[in-house]
């Protein structure tokens, strides 16, 4: 428990190092491209274009009853906020989970806080979040709707997302080194997660047992919360807020404690797995 908090604190104290490493990584990936750093912005947009076309224009009416405007941009804004937080989580978790495995050779040969590696991956993915959120806000304003009245909550949800993503990535990163097969399970979970987290379909309207259960998952909590804070207040989330919050933070703690335990007990023998 104490070690878990220590590892979180390590991220805070190493923040300058993380920022520098993120910058270095960005320069490295985009350095050889002609468009250079512009790809940081273009990449996430390209990734969501397909969803744009199919769900934004095709299935709009299915998911947005009682919309104040008939503008298709209104649904797109709704989808964009979900996409922003989801793609960010997806990228950060996938990269963060394999970060230690990828750098093992280097890290075991020098003194470097290994627990910082997932944070660096998270930092690299943050561009997706920013770009798609800005896009979503733009759509929202063009369609003539105001930002949600809950907007200060965005800070809470961002912090929650960061801690959740970090805990999950740390937890995965150790397992991934010991059990290489785990990556396919993780991939499966993350690709199904998009549908289960209600990024495209509004789970708030699912009034049955499946909907109830899906609405309790941490992924949905973050996606819905982000929308609640930026898009429009969500009565369904508000009704279940207490229980989902309890479940969310309990799972974060669980992941963090188990993840820290695994990380610490394997740190010394990571050398043998390289």
């Amino acid at each position, binding site marked *: 428990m104490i070690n878990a908090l220590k590892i979180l604190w390590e991220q805070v104290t190493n923040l300058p190092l993380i920022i520098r490493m993120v910058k270095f990584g960005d320069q490295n990936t985009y350095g050889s491209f002609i468009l250079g750093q512009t790809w940081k912005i273009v990449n996430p947009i390209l990734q969501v274009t397909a969803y744009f076309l199919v769900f934004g224009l095709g299935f709009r009416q299915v998911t947005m009853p009682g919309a104040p405007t008939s503008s298709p941009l209104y649904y797109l804004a709704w989808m964009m906020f979900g996409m922003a937080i989801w793609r960010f989580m997806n990228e950060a978790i996938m990269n963060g989970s394999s970060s230690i495995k990828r750098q093992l050779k280097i890290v075991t040969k020098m003194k470097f806080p290994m627990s910082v590696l997932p944070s660096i991956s998270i930092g690299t993915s943050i561009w997706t979040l920013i770009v798609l959120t800005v896009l979503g806000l733009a759509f929202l304003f063009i369609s003539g709707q105001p930002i949600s009245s809950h907007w200060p909550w965005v800070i809470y949800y961002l912090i929650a997302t960061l801690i959740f993503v970090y805990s999950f990535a740390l937890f995965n990163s150790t397992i991934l080194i*010991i059990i290489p097969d785990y990556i396919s399970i993780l991939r499966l979970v993350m690709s199904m997660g998009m549908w289960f987290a209600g990024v495209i379909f509004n789970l708030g309207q699912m009034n049955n047992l499946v909907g109830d259960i899906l609405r309790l998952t941490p992924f949905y909590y973050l996606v819905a919360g982000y929308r609640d804070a930026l898009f429009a207040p969500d009565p369904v989330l508000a009704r279940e807020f207490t229980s989902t919050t309890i479940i969310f933070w309990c799972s974060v703690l*669980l992941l963090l404690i188990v993840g820290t335990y695994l990380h610490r007990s394997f740190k010394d023998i990571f050398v043998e797995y390289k």
Partner: protein
Amino acid sequence: MIDDEEMKIVTKNVTKKFELESSKKKHIKELLTPFRKKEDNSFWSLKGVTFDVKPGEAVGVVGLNGSGKSTLLNIVSGIYPQTTGEVQINGDTSIISIGAGLKENLSGRDNIDFKLLMMGFTNAQVKETMPSIIEFSELGEFIDQPVKTYSSGMKSKLGFSIMAHTDPDIMIIDEALSVGDSTFASKSFDKIREFKKQGKTIFFVSHSNNQIKEIADTVLWMHYGELRENGPADVVMPHYIRWQKEFNALPRKKREKYMSQRKKLQRDFSVQDIAEAELRETLEGPNPDPTLVESRKARAEFVTKESKKLNKRSNPHRLGWVNLAIIFALIFTIGYTAYTTVHSAEAQRIEVKQKKEASRKAKIANEKKASEKRKSKKEKRESSVITSEYSPVPESQITNETPASILQDAGNQEDAGNQEDAGNQGDTGNQSIAGNPANAGNQANTGSQANVGGQTDSGNQTDSQAPGDATDVQGTTDADSNGVN
């Protein structure tokens, strides 16, 4: 605790245990059982090493392959911790070995950048030191080529150049100097001497006796996990060289037998041996505990107690009771909250359904009452009118629509109902006879509920006329909006 500020490195009885895993599966299983009793599968790479290093000293570590040299260096540099014993290091350490910590796909320049950043340099500092590193490494144009194209000599040159410019207090070199050519080696030695003058400590492993002789002040001779000799280079090195010659002169079978014997000793080593060593030390110390000196029993007790303590320390990362309790508590909380939430949601749904049902029945009952009234009035006036079929809900108006349209519908339906009533004003026998007996009981049961539902919102009422599942979703959204309002 050791508290010796003058020394750069102080170690005392350092041991390192590695687990030789029988299989990965077993290891995972062992790791996940919190109170494991594992079989002894350990290999002691270091069996109690004690030495000090003064500032400005160059320490050469010699020994056969697998005698624990690299383990010792890794422990000193803090890459992994010792199993037992104490290590105290005053200053930053920096380790290099052949091509260590170089990213194969990056160019030499990017590697310099990357390594320096990882060591906590700021971008400005990196920019500052970059030219001198490139110059020292003698790589010239190759600096912009990916490292995977480098020869091992070039890699070690690059590695040494980076490390030499990070300005560590303690420099640890793991066989990296054996690879470079003699020009570069002599250049490196100049650099090392420069460091020595600055009061820095150099700690290096080499298989080249000449290199050791050239720069080492003191030599640690590691021999199968033990420190065989520790002293000035000109004393230890002749011993080592003589032993090497004798050992190499032995026939191969004998050599192999000796080596496997030694390895077995390393496997059989246990924490009890450490405890016994500790006991010996306390007895030889300045003022040993009198009970320990006198009774054998007290000594045996001391050993068992100490080895228990050491055993605990040698398996440090356990999921303790507290954490386990917290984890179970968390799982329980998650499960309980999930269960209650789902359960209450289910209950709410059932309630809404019942309400709907009730209000539907109430509506039917109301209409029936009304029609009965009218009927009785009419019966007074006229007595014979042809009957027609009565349909309670106009079906075209049931299906999916927005709440606004539902409200409108409510009006329409009322109208429609009235009109129909008007049209059917003569309704007689058929309806009352067929309807009344069936609905009589329901009417009584749900009367009170029905009135509440009916009076509070007309939307719900109208909506509820729809049969079952088709408008389930809308029903609840209505309920939601009511709740919020």
